[in-house]
């Protein structure tokens, strides 16, 4: 075994993988949210954004493959860590209160992660797959607005965006702790930034289904 594979098998090494993939995914979410917001510019503007992405050809494919890898590694390491940790206390406490002392968001990292994973699958099937391989030549704008007119779909979407917010409320500052980039000077700023980002993503992504659901039932 080389020092590299040995290092990535250590507890801290595995966490570093979570951190690096997590932060890169987080950058992706920024770009994704910015892209989504072109929908506020109306159908034509949104469609132009979608076709610009497509016109990039191989570059877009390259990013897609990279993204898929990031997700796979983050999910694989995350679930493996959760399973490893689950067996570290074979006999549970009769009364266990220590976990109630900690921040709400820190208690459910793998659970919110699994929710995001379920969403990811549904999201890819209902938008990405339908658009690329649906074979009916439908515009993405139409697919998106049709789905969001469905109250169950919109509700599911919003619940997961809240879960994502909770994942990042803990995850963002946690990443800096894992890297060891903490300091009394800037850690409070990182914590506030994490909360801001959690709300930005949670609310930002939710606004779109909310808007299109209401405009659908509003009949325009």
């Amino acid at each position, binding site marked *: 075994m080389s*020092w590299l594979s*040995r*290092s990535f098998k*250590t*507890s*801290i*090494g*595995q*966490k*570093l993988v979570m951190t690096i993939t997590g932060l890169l995914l987080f950058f992706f979410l920024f770009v994704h949210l910015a892209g989504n917001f072109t929908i506020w510019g109306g159908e034509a503007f949104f469609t132009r954004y979608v076709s610009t992405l497509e016109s990039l050809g191989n570059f877009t494919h390259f990013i897609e493959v990279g993204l898929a890898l990031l997700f796979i590694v983050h999910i694989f390491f995350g679930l493996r*860590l959760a399973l*490893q*940790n689950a*067996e*570290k*206390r*074979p*006999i*549970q*406490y*009769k*009364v*266990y*209160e*220590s*976990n109630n*002392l*900690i*921040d709400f968001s*820190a*208690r459910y*990292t793998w659970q919110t992660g699994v929710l995001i994973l379920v969403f990811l699958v549904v999201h890819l099937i209902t938008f990405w797959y339908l658009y690329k391989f649906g074979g009916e030549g439908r515009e993405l704008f139409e697919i998106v607005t049709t789905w969001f007119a469905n109250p169950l779909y919109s509700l599911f979407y919003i619940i997961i965006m809240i879960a994502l917010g909770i994942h990042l409320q*803990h995850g963002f*500052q*946690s990443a*800096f*702790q*894992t*890297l*060891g*980039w*903490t300091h009394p000077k800037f850690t409070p700023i990182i914590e506030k930034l994490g909360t801001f980002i959690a709300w930005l993503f949670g609310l930002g992504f939710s606004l779109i289904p909310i808007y299109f659901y209401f405009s659908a039932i509003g009949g325009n």
Partner: protein
Amino acid sequence: MENHNINLTLNIWRQENPSTEGRFDEFKVSTSPDASILEMLDELNNTLEAKGERPIAFESDCREGICGTCGVVVNGHPHGPLPKIATCQLHMRTFKNGENLYIEPFRAKAYNIIKDLIVDRSPLDKIIQSGGFISINTGSAPDANIHPISKETATIAIEAAECIGCGACVAACKNASAMLFVSAKVSQFAVLPQGQLERYDRVQAMVNTMDEMGFGSCTNTYACEAECPKGVSITNIARMNRDFLNAKISSHALHF
């Protein structure tokens, strides 16, 4: 004399030896609010022994919060519900008359129960043995002042060195992770001039042993810091993470 005693129902974990199954036994006690929880157990043991029954096994030594032997979990909190004290400093006035108490051993895969409330915390010693020391000759006490250090640095080292090795951080963590303990033992040397020579080997060796001993990894929930009797800070964990990463990048010791 007036009797201010409070009446409590104790549910205490009993287990004959590491390989038998344990169970909770119930005891009704009347105790002085000024007694520490260990004194209360001493009294209970006296009555048990007088009746010819087996006393409850628990550990203690200094009974003033510095040796780290006495830890048990009281009502779901290692060292009891009050912050920044060891079990021996927990007084019965903390509890209300008629309250139900659950007293359990520290639970972790890495801690085997020896008897009742006594657990084997030697995996923590193994971690120290793998690197928690300075092997160069640093001279006698006055020689420490050869290397001037700032007040801030001294404070960080002293605060890390406050760790009494009680193992409550492991007991508190949902992953039974020993990161707070190990990071305190890494940090107390990492910030001092005398600790530099072995800095990167130390952190890698101790983290490896920590993993081998069956402790969990850190999910950064910080329950450890909230329950630590000495208030050891999770900034030590960040320092250890940083040193570990730096060691991987720059250390010449390829065997890690």
